């Protein structure tokens, strides 16, 4: 870098000073131009965030007035982007309710109608595709999901020698994804549903690494939904359109279930394999199933996540 020299220093002559000034200006000019050129892709940036969204508080810290403003902003943004006036609500959990899902593996025929209903109901991106439900085709006699086929595509289902196991968010009682989130952008509500504040998530994808069920999905690109397909009945913690760079997942259709309706995947199931309800109500269908069926399992029970999603058999 430097040579050892002990010669006494002298101030540079004025002409040298001018020359070095010109030289450094030229270097700085070239540097600035190069920097500008390297930043050029930013020109394509479409509306990424707004001051309002950037400064928005965490869901749990918002007052009702704050929330009203946020819902108005979301409504405005959705209308601008999709030409549809949405009905966005902040639906809170009901008292005395804890939701549980039960899925009858004997009945599921692997038609994937639930997958499509879920995409339509929950405004999931069509390109790139995001789906909350993954139906696994399993070989007869095994529950080892490493043997599963995700991309089966036969003429007709069900196929002989296989059974089908749809997997979606298991709404764990002890959710690993919630524990790992560095910013509390995801949490479990008192009705048992694990939700995400899409406006608070920083997109580190740690929850995605932590989830043992592949239930968490990341918006690797700006989600795209055809305007005519948008479902305008929306909830803040539910199916409102997401932004690029954030996580999303199954939330048991909060926009439906917290107003007394069934999740979309259940309604569409042609085999009647899906059951949903309040486990705290002893008269509910899920309570009956869990108290009368001889065998029901939780997926990867050994991990201690304690899912609120049960698989059972007609025995």
């Amino acid at each position: 870098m430097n040579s050892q020299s002990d010669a006494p220093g002298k101030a540079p002559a004025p002409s040298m000073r001018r020359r070095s000034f010109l030289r450094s200006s030229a270097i700085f000019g070239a540097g600035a131009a190069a920097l500008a050129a390297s930043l050029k892709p930013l020109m394509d940036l479409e509306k990424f965030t707004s001051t309002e969204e950037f400064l928005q508080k965490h869901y749990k810290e918002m007052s009702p007035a704050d929330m009203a403003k946020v819902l108005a902003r979301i409504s405005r943004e959705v209308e601008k982007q999709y030409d549809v006036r949405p009905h966005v609500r902040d639906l809170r959990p009901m008292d005395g309710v804890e939701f549980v899902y039960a899925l009858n593996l004997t009945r599921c025929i692997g038609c994937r109608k639930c997958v499509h209903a879920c995409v339509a109901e929950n405004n999931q991106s069509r390109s790139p595709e995001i789906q909350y439900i993954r139906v696994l085709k399993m070989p007869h006699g095994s529950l080892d999901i490493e043997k599963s086929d995700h991309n089966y595509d036969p003429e007709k289902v069900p196929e002989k020698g296989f059974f089908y196991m749809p997997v979606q968010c298991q709404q764990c009682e002890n959710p690993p994804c919630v524990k790992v989130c560095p910013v509390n952008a995801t949490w479990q509500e008192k009705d048992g549903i694990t939700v995400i504040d899409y406006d608070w998530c920083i997109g580190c994808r740690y929850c995605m690494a932590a989830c043992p069920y592949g239930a968490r999905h990341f918006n690797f690109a700006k989600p795209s939904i055809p305007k005519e397909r948008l479902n305008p009945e929306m909830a803040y913690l539910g199916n409102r359109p997401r932004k690029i760079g954030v996580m999303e997942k199954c939330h048991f259709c909060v926009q439906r279930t917290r107003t007394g309706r069934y999740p979309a995947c259940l309604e569409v199931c042609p085999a009647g394999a899906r059951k949903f309800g309040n486990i705290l109500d002893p008269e509910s269908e899920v309570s009956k199933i869990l108290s009368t069926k001889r065998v029901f399992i939780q997926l990867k029970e050994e991990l201690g996540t304690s899912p609120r999603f049960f698989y059972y058999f007609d025995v």
Partner: protein
Amino acid sequence: MTQAVRNYITFLTRCARIAFVGDWRYYAWMGLLTAIVLLGINAYCKQFVHGLIVTGMGDEVSWGVYIGNFTFLVGVAAAAVMMVIPVYIYRNKELHDLVVFGELLAVAAILMCLAFVTVDLGRPDRFWHLIPGIGQLNFPASMLSWDVVVLNGYLLLNVHICGYLLYCRYCGRTPSRWFYIPFVFIAIAWAVSIHTVTAFLYVGLGGRPFWNSSIVGPRFLASAFTAGPALIILALQVIRAVTHYPISDKALLTLRSIVQVSMIINVFLLINELFKEFYTGATHVASAKYLFFGLHGHNALVPWIWTAIVFNLIAMFLLVLPVSRSLKWLNLACVLSIIGIWIEKGMGMVIPGFVPSTLGMIVEYQPSTNETLISFGIWAFGLLVYTILLRMAVPILQGRLARANEGCGVLEDGLPPKVETAIEAH
């Protein structure tokens, strides 16, 4: 008080100025690094606009080279402690005047780590959600929040220690022990913590059997204390060659013994892991099988991991044999261990955790060009930072940049003349 502030500002200005002067080799090196950094910025702008879709990551393999490099560099940063311990605990004379170069490397490495995590974020604009008080840091539940705390803390500790010692040297006064010795000892424990916490980041995930193993922490430390000092050995020789700063071969050989022992432990721990994975033959071996032998015809990582293993083994033998007392062989061993461990911890540790996926799907990962450019950009940024820090530190340690020669003009090498009145105390 104001005089003290003014003095400090003069010090900072002179340091900043000196970063812009050097001989043609310096300009060529800095120019090259700047060009790579700009390419990286350009690639990052593309990623910022289009999203992480421009990387090779996806729903199945959701972390890639960014987090791999991050993991490796946390190790490099932690390894500075391997110079600090001999100096401050065992009073090693040879390394005494060199320890600051290790700490500056830690500073550069931590900055690279922070850059790698930032480019991995989907919403970098929301980074403030991590700041306690205005955001919501999920501490202590999330290991990532621990990482945020320990990495930034380690950065501050090292900036303080290096900055204080260099400023004292600049002023020609003896540093007050109370101002840095306690921090040095905190930094020693802290260095171990940064890499342990980074290991726990993976270890704590029950859904990923490949990572959910208690040996990950020890392996991380062993590999860090191999690759880090190996990098310092190479860096010190470059410093010696270009600045004539006195660095003895004995100092390099002290570091060699550290690399030697760490590499043996590293290989031993690897054998432990391999045995446990393959001898039991439980279903959870799938990831390890994928990494080492390929799974159902998918074998993208196989050549990488075997390269790493061969490099590590050659390096280990070189380090154990007396030949590596000659710098030529020592350097070869260092280069091999750095590459070997980089592969082992990046591609070999992060990726197989995702293959097969938690639902048993095999999707292979390959970094995209854009992702690679960003990674190179961050490496170049780190080297740029390290070079600038050295460009400031070396003349200060040599007494060429001191309070005593303020306002003396500069010689043709861009530095002021040495004024002998400067006390060389440390």
